[in-house]
């Protein structure tokens, strides 16, 4: 045991003595939370649009001002004819153009029908779709409101209740995601690199020849990362709580225990990667492609899993972060406990045992 502690200390100094690593360890979780909290958003505000008003009457002016005062749009007055739309789209200056037909107001009064064309730059289909939807909704509301002005017809009003997250805060999504991502990064990626490093530099031989049991060597190498990941997880939870008011509705002890389980799983994955690779570069690329990308993209953290094609949805099912993120979200937001989470927890535990068994089988105590 004393040998083990000595070994852990050595590893710990290795990491902690490098100020660059230390800086990133602390700056990364905070920077990411702030980025996700303030910068990464699909919420549309002040999208530049052009308005081509061929009629320029009372009603078109009213509609235009309704659209512009909605907060979603901002007028770019540089468009004066249809020919200029293409140019403006290509320069990326505006996203949408609203075209009123000539004699718009007159027609609406006399014939009861008038036309508006919405032209969107759909090179970004998501934004184009949202913008045209918003525009249409505003126009529809306007048309309903002028129709009901003089009549008594009453209409259906939807009463919307947003469950769990009434203010639609993005933080509820990304705080669990960032925890998963950072734990994966520190525990799996850093561990795999640090073990392969010993192999590549030839110092693994020295360690294996020492009186330390080979498994103690590995355990000693991963323990500091376990500690660091755990500290980072707490840091994220605290930042989430104090900066974005993300609550922990469930049991905090259960939450931390689940974090530990996930760290354990990630560490065993890291060890597995290191047994399979010889150079740090390869370990890094495998970790990046096989761990980081799925953690970020296939875990439902940025892109909802339900919208993906079926094959990818199945692929998501074998990604450990998906379960972890679900656990964290359930505990933090829905206040869930072990009775609702036992299956996810069991899957994570099963995965760690599987990775450990495979790496023990593959682990060589001799160099070839």
């Amino acid at each position, binding site marked *: 045991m004393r040998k083990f502690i000595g070994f852990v200390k050595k590893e710990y100094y290795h990491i902690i003595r490098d100020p660059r690593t230390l800086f990133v360890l602390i700056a990364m979780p905070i920077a*990411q939370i702030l980025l996700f909290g303030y910068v990464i958003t699909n919420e549309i505000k002040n999208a530049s649009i052009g308005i081509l008003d061929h009629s320029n009457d009372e009603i078109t002016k009213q509609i235009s001002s309704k659209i512009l005062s909605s907060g979603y749009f901002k007028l770019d007055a540089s468009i004066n004819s249809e020919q200029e739309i293409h140019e403006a789209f290509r320069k990326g200056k505006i996203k949408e153009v609203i075209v009123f037909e000539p004699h718009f107001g007159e027609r609406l009064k006399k014939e009861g029908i008038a036309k*508006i064309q919405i032209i969107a730059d759909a090179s970004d289909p998501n934004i184009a779709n949202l913008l045209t939807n918003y525009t249409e909704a505003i126009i529809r509301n306007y048309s309903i409101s002028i129709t009901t002005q003089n009549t008594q017809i009453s209409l259906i009003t939807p009463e919307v209740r947003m469950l769990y997250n009434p203010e639609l805060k993005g933080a509820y999504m990304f705080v669990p995601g960032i925890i998963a991502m950072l734990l994966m990064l520190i525990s799996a990626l850093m561990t795999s690199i640090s073990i392969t490093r010993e192999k590549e530099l030839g110092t693994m031989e020295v360690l294996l020849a020492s009186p330390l049991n080979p498994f103690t060597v590995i355990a000693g190498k991963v323990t500091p990362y376990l500690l660091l990941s755990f500290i980072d997880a707490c840091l994220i939870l605290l930042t989430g709580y104090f900066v974005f008011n993300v609550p922990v509705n469930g049991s905090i002890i259960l939450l931390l225990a689940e974090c530990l389980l996930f760290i354990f799983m990630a560490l065993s994955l890291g060890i597995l990667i290191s047994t399979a690779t010889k150079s740090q570069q390869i370990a890094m690329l495998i970790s990046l492609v096989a761990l980081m990308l799925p953690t970020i993209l296939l875990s439902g953290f940025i892109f909802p899993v339900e919208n993906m094609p079926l094959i990818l949805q199945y692929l998501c099912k074998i990604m450990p972060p998906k379960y972890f993120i679900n656990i964290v979200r359930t505990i933090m937001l829905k206040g869930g406990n072990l009775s609702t989470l036992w299956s996810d927890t069991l899957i994570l535990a099963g995965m760690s045992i599987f990775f450990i068994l495979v790496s023990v089988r593959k682990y060589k105590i001799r160099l070839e």
Partner: protein
Amino acid sequence: MRIILFIIQKEFLQIFRNKSMLPVIFVMPIIQLIILVNAATFEMKNIELCIVDKDLSTYSRNLSSKFEGSPYFVIEKQTFSAKEAIKYIDRGVITAAIVIPKGFERKIVRNEKNIKIQVLVDAINGTNAGVSQAYIISIIQDYNKQILSKFLPVNSPGNDIETSRRFWYNPELNYKTFMVPGILVLLITIISFILSGMNIVREKEMGTIEQINVTPIKKYQFIAGKLIPFWIIGLFELAFGLTIGKLLFDIPLVGNLGLVFGFAAIYLIVLLALGLLVSTIVNTQQQAMFISFFFMVVFILMSGLFTGIENMPEWAQIADKANPLAYFIEVMRMILLKGSGISDILYQLFAIIIFAVLMIWLAVWRYKKIS
């Protein structure tokens, strides 16, 4: 010049002799493109809905069939109690529930005030919830319009404003054509940045850099010899990725490909110089990895790849002027999807050239032949 060629030859030999390098160069782009392009979508369709119809009348059925007919929704469950619907939301079976109260039809026909429908949305994913809500409300508004036209006095003029949408450049709103150019940028960025940065750090860590330092090879020769191979690999990856994008996803490639490669050539110089710069401040590959990962994540998240730059707060948009990735992604999309010409991208072109000069100067200045 001859010396540079020799170093390039040595680098290429080393790269290609490394068996695990080839899959990284050829297989990774394919996998990444396929997975990323399919996974990275904000497109919302098949929102799972539960309809709680307590009225069971013609009117309420009409309303639910409107939801059924919309491409955005699938009706996953139908019950008669709102409590049960909430339970479904709790378990994550459905995303939203519509509760139509008793007396719905009667109220409409008798023209009573306060006809209400309750809409319950699982809002843990705030963005999705916002979009679902917008779709639901727009369907209800549509229904309102129907009621209006039904109950309006026969000869009073309606006020029907007809809107038509036109989606330029991508009429089918195919999200994949939008993602491919961006993902391609991500791909060549990760590969060339990591390979170049790691390459020199590796020589440092193994100690072989000392051997090169004591040779008469000049500083600029060493740097050029180290970076040119990765520059070539980067451009090759771009061509390779574009081919896959064209074959698999049928992206339009409207604009001038020469312009794309020209811009990429300068962009790669920025990136490789950045890699070199990182390699001068770290000692081990692990440190390099950690630091690069940190900056990469920040650059990627702020690049407009997944979420539009114009949605970001003002300060972030200003900070983004120092993000080479943002320029390249923007330019790729402009040229490939909209056919923008050189006059449309002058601003981005100047910015990236300034970056290239600055980065090369910094990297060469920091790089020293003594350790």
